[in-house]
């Protein structure tokens, strides 16, 4: 079952097309990475999914129900962790979570239990009676998450949940995302930190100018741009004559020498590093360092959009 199914979605603001005929599905149990540079249409898409904006055309289904017709059902099953903190500074952590959970109809003992559960999940149970103004940035981010999960949504959208926090809190939050996923939540995760997306997302979509330009697993995305890897070998001194013998190794497409640096372009599917090193050692070359570079998401993003993610 698809938890989220977007079909032909468009959103215009006057002449500006923020989302352009977008179609996308997110399956149950996925951690879905949603990448796009600023202004690509990410936030507009999230706002459309959250029923905060009306689409110009197209439809959005959450748990197989059209959100235009079943807005309440959709909202009851959706939890949003906004990019900017959305908590009350003049209410305690407990009161914050309780207030927002109460908006989903929870009351009495159940509300209290869910509030405590959410605070425990993000590791703030000891700070329940404290006011957020006394919290660190990481603790505020965790409270921001607790406010979105106390009503146990099936789909959680996390918009840059680790922005501006310390490494320890980032590790905690990423672990929490995985744990939520293990508990059965489907998660849509946006981040400017490519390594986070690579680390936790099972599938990734890249949005640019309101369109999905790539969608798949990390490996699938990389395969869309190249099947070559880059091997860089630093020698003690330049050996221009080695290029010819290296080109005869299976998989090697190109060899270039620049000063004492050898740069070899090779088929990604062929494991030929040991053969390359053997040729170099046999020819008496003095190897100082070896680096094998496979294309990563950053490369994919840059290749597809022409921009860095943080642009």
């Amino acid at each position, binding site marked *: 079952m698809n938890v989220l199914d977007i079909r032909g979605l468009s959103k215009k603001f006057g002449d500006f097309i923020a989302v352009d005929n977008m179609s996308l599905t997110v399956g149950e149990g996925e951690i879905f990475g949603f990448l796009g540079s600023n202004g690509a249409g990410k936030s507009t898409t999230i*706002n459309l999914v959250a029923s905060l904006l009306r689409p110009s055309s197209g439809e959005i289904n959450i748990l197989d129900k059209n959100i235009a017709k079943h807005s309440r059902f959709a*909202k009851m099953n959706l939890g949003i962790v906004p990019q900017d903190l959305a908590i009350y500074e003049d209410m305690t952590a407990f009161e914050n979570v309780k207030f927002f959970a109460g*908006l989903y*109809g929870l009351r009495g003992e159940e509300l209290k239990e869910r509030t405590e559960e959410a605070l425990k999940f993000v590791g703030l149970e000891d700070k329940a009676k404290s006011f957020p103004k006394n919290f660190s940035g990481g603790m505020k981010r965790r409270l921001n998450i607790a406010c979105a999960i106390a009503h146990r949504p099936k789909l959680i959208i996390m918009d840059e949940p680790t922005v501006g926090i310390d490494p320890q809190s980032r590790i905690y939050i990423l672990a929490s995302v995985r744990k939520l996923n293990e508990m059965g939540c489907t998660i849509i995760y946006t981040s400017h930190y490519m390594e986070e997306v690579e680390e936790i997302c099972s599938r990734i979509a890249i949005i640019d100018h309101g369109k999905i330009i790539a969608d798949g697993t990390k490996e699938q995305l990389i395969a869309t741009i190249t099947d070559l890897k880059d091997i860089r070998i630093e020698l003690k001194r330049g050996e221009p004559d080695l290029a010819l013998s290296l080109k005869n190794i299976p998989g090697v497409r190109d060899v270039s020498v620049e000063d004492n640096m050898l740069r070899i372009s090779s088929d990604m599917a062929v494991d030929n590093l040991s053969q390359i090193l053997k040729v170099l050692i046999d020819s008496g070359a003095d190897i100082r360092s070896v680096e094998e570079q496979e294309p990563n998401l950053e490369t994919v993003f840059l290749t597809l959009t022409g921009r860095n993610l943080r642009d």
Partner: protein
Amino acid sequence: MGKNIWWLVLSSLRKEFRKRGNILIYFGLPLAGVLISTFIYANAGQSVLRVGVVNGDGAETVAAETVRFISEMGQVKAENVTEEELATLLAAGKLDSGVVLEEGYSQSVLAGQPDHIVISSIKGAEVTAYLKALLYNYIDNMTALGRAAEGDPARYQELFEEYRNTVFKLQAETVNDKSVTKDMTYQSLGFLILFMMMSSVNLTELILKHREDRTFYRIISSPVSSRAYVISNIIVNMIVMLLQIIVTLFFLRYVFKLDPGIPITALAGLLGLFALASVGISLVIVAFSKNRGVSDSLQNLIVTPTCLLAGCFFPVEIMPVAVRRIADFMPQRWVLLAVEELQDGSGFGGIWLNLSTLFVFAIVFFLIAAYKFGHNNDTRKFI
């Protein structure tokens, strides 16, 4: 929707009343207004006329009796002075008025042609009118006795004794002057109206605050609609203002012991209707504001000046006619007019126009705000 609105209302009220500063603003300021009004009018209506009497007619009976009469007059404190002292004390404001009985005064009364009496004041007719009214009446009686005695002092004395000892007595009673408490009430209500409007704008501003701190985003991401959220804000606003009205009127009537001249419940109902118009104005201010800075500026531009023009701080009658006409376009003026009319004895039937106008004001403001909010529904602005 109803349960969610109630949840928002209770949470907001809990938050508002948790802060002591808010309690001071919502209830302390209107009470301070009542206190200021009582101070302003503290000395009004309780005046005793300080009169200096110069008896230049010696030991003549008529003159002596006149001096006695003046000193026994109600609301008058008489003091025997010389002519020089009288001039000095009047100039210094230590006396309000002076009565000079010149030589020959008694004879003129006996002759039936009263003369040689001078009443003076530098404060004008307002001060001398009361004194003249009573004193001239007394002198007229004395003159009538003089005419009856036909110039015979013994006969006059006899008639005068009879006059003094007559069984017919005029009992004078001082009527309690309610105009002062009415003025105090009016002034207190003027301050209450100002503080109600300020509280209302501050509470409605919470909509902008929650948009700025993005909690509004989280709220409308939940099953609560933006309409339900605004309705909850209006309910909170009305509850706070009704509490303001109840607390202020309670203190006004039972602590400061001021009788507004109108049943408290009627006054509360009238102010409750104004509260609705006030929420409407606040919603318009907030609907036209991009952030709290703008709404604060609009509040300063709208609330205090309109209260000033509408007569919340001083009677509108002292203002030029053109300004008074402008005041007619302000709901504060209509509520104060209604108060005046009720104080003057009109029933609710007599203020139906005021009530209808206030109601129309409220409806118009709500419609303008609803239109503006509807066209503000660009999520990019707030999310």
